[in-house]
């Protein structure tokens, strides 16, 4: 009952729309493809025609990538992307969810299946005839960027690792990307936090449900995020303990999106978790501003490009990674001014959306190439995979440079 009411309140923000069209000018998708009619159209305008128990009639809303830029730029406070997410959910619920969406939205399944057989799984993902087959049967685009299974899980490393006891404690939420694909990123996060005097606790955890949510599978997404919140909340007895994550879209899910989009505003555990959750760069910059961040940085004489992902922008914390990276001597950071890389989680993997995602990302790819950077820093893993796919340049989380600058890579 309260879920429904929360959703009504979200919908109610459409009242603030004065039709100024700022969202339409900022939307990366509608500017790249005519298949998506744009956020003003799909959001506050179309929402007036939607009746919850009637058949969904506007399949075009499925072309919204859910990047959330519209809601960020709206000067009136219309929750455009969130309204679209609701509409997408209704559409999927009524018209059925493709098998593809059921598979690619479950990183845990994929990760558990792929990790033990990583070499074979990676070979499969790179084997063109099978990718063509997967495109035809499942609708996953043959060229879509597929991460490589690391063959080991971050949580296994974490269980074996003992964080030195310290008065300040953080709960590390590593997310699925770190768990199955980039466990080294998690190890670096832990090292940087410990270097700054934190005791890092890594509780048992699972997917936050964001991929499910963005594909409109709300019931499953609610289950996932509640389970995760329960696990994280159990560690929050000490009032000073906070949660930190390096998967910026997943931390945004915990902070805000699950509560708003899934109608879980009143869930007490999720609320507690949301209040205490930090993006890793947000936390480190806050430390720095309090004079508590260690700045024993060695120079890194390199030029890199930095792209702030859409979801990172949704935190409303500015671009803390940029400020942190500027602390590193000799590191030349070029800020990219493109809006979106196009991938939007799983959007760009879908056969019918791959071309749109690539068109959205083109401006970013061109900027990266023009910058002369050797590497790209970006806070979100799926964006990194897309950027590498679009530019053929390596991409890493900004924390990697702090890790190197602290000399932690040399033990």
């Amino acid at each position, binding site marked *: *009952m309260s879920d*429904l*009411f929360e*959703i*009504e*309140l979200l*919908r*109610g923000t*459409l*009242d*603030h*729309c*004065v*039709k*100024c069209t700022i969202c339409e000018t900022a939307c990366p998708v509608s500017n790249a493809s*005519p*298949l998506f*009619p744009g956020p*003003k*159209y799909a959001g506050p*305008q*179309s*929402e*007036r*025609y*939607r*009746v*919850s*128990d*009637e*058949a*969904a*009639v*506007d*399949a*075009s809303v499925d072309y919204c990538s859910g990047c959330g830029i519209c809601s960020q730029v709206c000067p*009136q406070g219309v929750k455009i992307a969130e309204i679209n997410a609701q509409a997408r959910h209704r559409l999927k619920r009524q018209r059925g969810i493709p098998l593809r969406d059921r598979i690619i939205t479950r990183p845990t399944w994929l990760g558990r299946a792929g990790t033990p057989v990583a070499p074979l799984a990676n070979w499969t993902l790179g084997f063109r005839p099978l990718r063509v087959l997967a495109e035809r049967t499942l609708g996953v685009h043959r060229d879509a960027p597929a991460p490589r299974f690391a063959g080991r899980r971050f949580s296994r490393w974490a269980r074996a690792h003992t964080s030195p006891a310290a008065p300040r404690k953080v709960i590390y939420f590593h997310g699925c990307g770190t768990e199955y694909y980039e466990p080294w990123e998690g190890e670096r996060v832990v090292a940087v936090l410990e270097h700054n005097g934190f005791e890092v606790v890594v509780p048992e955890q699972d997917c936050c449900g964001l991929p499910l949510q963005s594909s409109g599978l709300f019931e499953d997404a609610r289950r996932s995020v509640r389970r995760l919140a329960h696990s994280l909340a159990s560690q929050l007895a000490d009032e000073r303990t906070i949660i930190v994550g390096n998967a910026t879209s997943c931390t945004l899910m915990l902070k805000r999106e699950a509560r708003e989009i899934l109608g879980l505003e009143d869930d007490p555990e999720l609320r507690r978790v949301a209040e205490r959750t930090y993006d890793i760069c947000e936390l480190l910059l806050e430390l720095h501003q309090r004079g508590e961040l260690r700045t024993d940085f060695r120079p890194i004489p390199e030029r890199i490009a930095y792209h702030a992902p859409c979801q990172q922008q949704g935190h409303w914390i500015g671009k803390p990674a940029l400020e942190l990276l500027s602390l590193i001597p000799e590191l030349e950071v070029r800020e990219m001014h493109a809006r979106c890389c196009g991938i939007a989680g799983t959007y760009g993997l879908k056969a019918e959306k791959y071309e749109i995602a690539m068109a959205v990302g083109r401006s970013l790819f061109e900027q990266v190439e023009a910058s002369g950077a050797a590497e790209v820093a970006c806070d979100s893993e799926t964006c990194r995979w897309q950027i590498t796919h679009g530019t053929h340049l390596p991409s890493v989380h900004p924390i990697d440079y702090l890790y190197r600058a602290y000399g932690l890579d040399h033990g």
Partner: protein
Amino acid sequence: MLSLTTEVLVIGGGATGAGVAWDASLRGLGVILVDRLDLAEGTSGRFHGLLHSGGRYVVKDAPAARECIAENRILRRVAADCIEDTGGLFVTTPWDDPAYADRFAAACRETGVDCEEITVAQARRDEPRLHPEISRAFRVPDANMDIWKTVWAMAHGAQQCGARILPYHEVTAIRRDGDRVTGARVRDVRAGEDLTIEAQVTVNASGAWAGQIAAMAGIDGVRVFPGRGIMIAMNHRLVNTVINRCQMPTDGDILVPIRTVSVIGTTDVHTDDPDDHTVLESEVDRMLDDGEKLVPGFRQARALRVWTGVRPLFEDAKAAGTDTRDVTRAHALLDHRQRDGVEGFVTITGGKVTTFRLMAEETVDAVCDLLGRDTPGSTAEQPLPGSESGANYRLGERLARKDERLRQEQTICECELVPRSRLEHALAETGSRNLDDIRRRLRLGMGPCQGGFCIYRTVGIMHAAGGIDAASADASLLDFLQERWKGVWPILYGDQLRQMRFDEWVFQGVLDVGHLPEAPA
């Protein structure tokens, strides 16, 4: 002077008049309908859109309740495309006498109004924004009706049978030949020409103006007390079911979801002039307070527009008593042969929109009587043009159509999703170069921005379509903005205030409409 001859002249193009024209045409009578303005521009076009189940009247006025439920069932069939089956709820709020609910349920059984009590939890699942402290809830077959669509469908149906429909033809005199009314002289206000219409029977279906028309025929004592009521359209559907308070009917106790908005109504203030459209601040305030009792947060939601309608409350000065109790919301059919010894003249007034078809049928029965015809009416069986399939209207229809043709066509009105082809079709079909006429047909300019984005586009297209010079097009733009403004200023707060500021930037700041190149004098 041009002269036309017909069997039946209908004065008044509201729901009743158009209903009379449709009914008479189906019976094979020759019909001319005139209205001083556009069709459904008076009372009919100014109600909240509720097709009553009869629930509102079960306790207070059982015959009215029976009429409503019977007509409700008929109209759902014959006017299916004009009706959205929202269903209705009667809810007992903390401000309502809890004892009324049982009386209500019993009276529903008595009068045959379908009514099912549901749990409060169920009601709130259906309507999450409903006041959490309601104690009882009853489901009834309320619905909403798009009256413009209905009236236009009837007018088209009548035209297909040979009727002539003449909007903007104002009656300037009723022609009398001794004890017989023989038609009327009317003025084509757009062409500036007079014409006479000779008719065997003249039907006065002018609603709140019926007393004025009767007086022109030299008939006294047709007293219609215009009861003015305000309605406020909220920017979106706060509810998808008609919500009524379960209490004796009073002001501000109905919230009707219709098209893209929800309308709260209404008040009832006596006025002497049916053209009085005063909106008092206190009325607006009261209505918003009443909204809060149904849907908490009502005052924070965006009000789009306020308007007034005048009910025709009829009192027959020639009836036995002139007690105010004789002032009734039931309809009144006056055969002036019996009442005044005047042949060829019938007045139909009073009543409510839900029962317009019945009123029209009874009126045409009386007309047939005067003409010595014996053809029964068939409007209870014959679907209106556009309603043949029997499928009810759905809110998503425009969005569905638009989604199918996303890339093919320019959208003119973004709020009401009016594509360019529909605008061009309406301009061609009506020949009208009046933006307000176009608005009523397409709902263009009726959404949140109140014409902010569509009207300058529309004026350009209208001018390009021909038949209007630049100065008149400019004037038409300014008139429209002025007309929209009238309905907005009494609710100018919050989001709608922001919208109007934005529109002002568009029209004053960007387009500088105060200094158009070919501005009217």
